[in-house]
């Protein structure tokens, strides 16, 4: 059974966490980061697999620097985060200075989410990787729409603003992407 990470998110605790982070509370910022970074990395691994970690790190640099100016609720926070990520990705593509680094496992064990079983975690990880690989086979717009709706948890209108498209175009792209995904899965007989 897969446990969604985007169900409740921070919910009612978000305003206090954000306010504390803006006042300089590192634990509050860490909470915001732990909540959002996995979704951010998954999004980037689909649309920029070679630069995902670099762009994610660059995104947080910009978010940290603009943190004191941010005003809004949790959906607005996520929209800002992913908009920033997309802009950083565009900049990185222009610079063509993608660096590949070995991931640093710098999160203390205590900060990692508690998993019930190592085998379950391994299966989940494998499934998530497979899902990312599958989504990367879709046209870019379709993949982005699915990721921003499902992984980032953004509403259609927010995705439309982020991508510079109409809500109708976003809706169509999302539906087409899911249908294409169904075709790919049927052709390959893929089971996760």
């Amino acid at each position: 059974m897969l446990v969604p990470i985007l169900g409740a998110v921070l919910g009612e605790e978000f305003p206090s966490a954000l306010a504390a982070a803006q006042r300089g509370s590192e634990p509050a910022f860490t909470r915001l980061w732990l909540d959002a970074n996995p979704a951010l990395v998954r999004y980037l691994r689909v649309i920029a697999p070679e630069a995902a970690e670099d762009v994610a790190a660059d995104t947080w640099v910009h978010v940290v620097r603009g943190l004191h100016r941010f005003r809004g609720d949790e959906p607005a926070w996520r929209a800002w985060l992913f908009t920033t990520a997309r802009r950083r990705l565009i900049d990185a593509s222009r610079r063509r200075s993608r660096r590949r680094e070995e991931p640093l496992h710098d999160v203390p064990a205590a900060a990692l989410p508690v998993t019930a079983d190592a085998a379950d975690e391994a299966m989940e990880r494998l499934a998530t990787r497979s899902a990312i690989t599958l989504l990367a086979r879709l046209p870019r717009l379709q993949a982005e729409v699915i990721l921003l709706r499902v992984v980032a948890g953004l509403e259609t209108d927010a995705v439309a603003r982020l991508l510079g498209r109409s809500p109708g175009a976003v809706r169509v792209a999302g539906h087409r992407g899911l249908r294409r995904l169904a075709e790919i899965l049927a052709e390959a007989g893929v089971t996760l």
Partner: protein
Amino acid sequence: MTGGGVSGSDMPSLPWTARQDVSPVEDTSLAALLAGNGLPASADSELRPVADVLAALTARPAGDELTGLAAAQAEFRRHVVRPAGVRRSSRRRPGGLASRLGAKAGAATAVVVMGFGGAAAAAYAGVLPGSWQQFAHRAIGAPAHGAGHDTPAGAGAAGSAADRPCAAYRRALADGTASQQAAALRDLVQAAGGAGKVTAWCAAVPRASHPAYRTQSSGPLARDGSPHHAGPPHHAGPPAGPPSVYRGWPPGSSPARSALDRPARGRAGRRPLPRA
């Protein structure tokens, strides 16, 4: 639809496919999947694997998705934790200071942040707050506090054309707009041959206290902030390239440039914010 006499090739080529094959039920199911609501019981079985893929996309985070936390925390400590106190104190100071010292001292304070050239010029102009002016007097030979441009006419040194840029800058600081101050400072830097030479250059020339000069210089400032008759005295000409007060900062980003070139208050051209 194709009317009579209209061939199929005349029909517009639409970039999307016909959607007659898509059932409303399927659309509802897709919308539910995108909204994270799961697959309805009535959904097509072909969508089940898709639902599994989306569930995998939202599975709990793995360790390699949590790398980078230490770097983000370090950035947070650098830009949020420590500067927060700096921002708060820097917000308080200028307001309180300006209110205590008045517009004249406020202008001098603004000049100080332009950099050494501006600070030195302000110090020499004798418009810094008392203790700062006294410090500048001891440190770099600027006029002592109280010995500024209140020098009685005809008392002491004779007027000097070389002092005109200095005097023009002093007057612009005291009474001019931001653009007039900028223009006067540029003239002064050019006359001195560099921002770092302003203090020594102004100190070397007699203060313009001649009655004739005072009469002229007390008239209205020209549009560039300098007296109409003012011009660079005997010097080797303006330094090559941009004014040296800008050197060391990238074009258009220097604090000196932004402070100097700030439009005067009430200047037209600022577009109103669009209504929400």
